[in-house]
């Protein structure tokens, strides 16, 4: 399936009703070969228009609606092991991440967030001058 680019907004995350039930999506976080921090979150049933990725004050928040509907009213559920819901999870960002360069894509119900490292955070070799 085609990857869909998600707009990453630099604003407070959309408010979450504290009374509402949210589901924390399962995630993987790893370091890409170029040093970028990568995050993948399982959000089955999430459509691109419901995904909200925001960065504010060093917090990355990801949200989406998992739309999993029964096929119709005249069906009876024989086995039920999963249901849709509101996905929500937030992460503290390292200072090393370049906030302005964060990118997100949605593909096959998986949200992938790419967080490049800021130039200043790359390892620099410091020469020692003999004096």
């Amino acid at each position: 399936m085609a990857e869909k680019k998600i707009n990453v907004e630099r604003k407070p995350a959309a408010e979450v009703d504290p009374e509402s039930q949210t589901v924390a999506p399962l995630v993987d976080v790893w370091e890409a070969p170029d040093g970028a921090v990568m995050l993948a979150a399982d959000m089955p049933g999430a459509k691109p228009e419901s995904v909200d990725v925001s960065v504010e004050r060093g917090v990355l928040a990801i949200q989406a609606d998992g739309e999993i509907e029964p096929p119709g009213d005249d069906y009876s559920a024989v086995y039920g092991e999963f249901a849709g819901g509101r996905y929500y999870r937030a992460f503290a960002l390292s200072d090393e991440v370049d906030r302005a360069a964060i990118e997100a894509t949605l593909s096959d119900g998986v949200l992938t967030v790419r967080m490049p490292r800021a130039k200043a955070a790359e390892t620099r070799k410091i020469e020692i001058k003999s004096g």
Partner: protein
Amino acid sequence: MTRIRGENWWDPFGGFRQLQRELERWMGLGRDLLGEARRAGGMGYPPVNVYDGTEDVVVQCEVPGVARDDLDVSLTGDTLTLRGVRRPPVEAGSEPEQGESEQQRPRYEVRERGMGEFCRTIVLPDRVDGERVEADLDAGVLTIRLPKAESSRPHKVPVN
């Protein structure tokens, strides 16, 4: 459930809530579906919902991140088999070749998403017509529609 043990109490420990959810998923607690799940094939991966209608049986499966080509659905009698592979999120070009050192593999900080091959068999609640099965993958949810066999559909019996 008392107030203090409600969802709010758990909120500072999002991870625990997740764990609880996973445990519930595995053990069928909180849902009176364990017996059904055993019949379905034992609460394996992927999780499924099975709906029984008058015209067809609908099976939904949660398979986020699984490519269409990595899914294999087959039907034998009234047993549906789902096979597939969920591949780890490795960036293009960074797939470790044989002989490459461990350091060239992606370094995981958090690894919660299970990966690898899966196979699950589901006993359907009714006989279906295997020739007209349709499977559709959208947003990580696989929906399989299995029209019921002619002999399983309700037939009106005329009363003379």
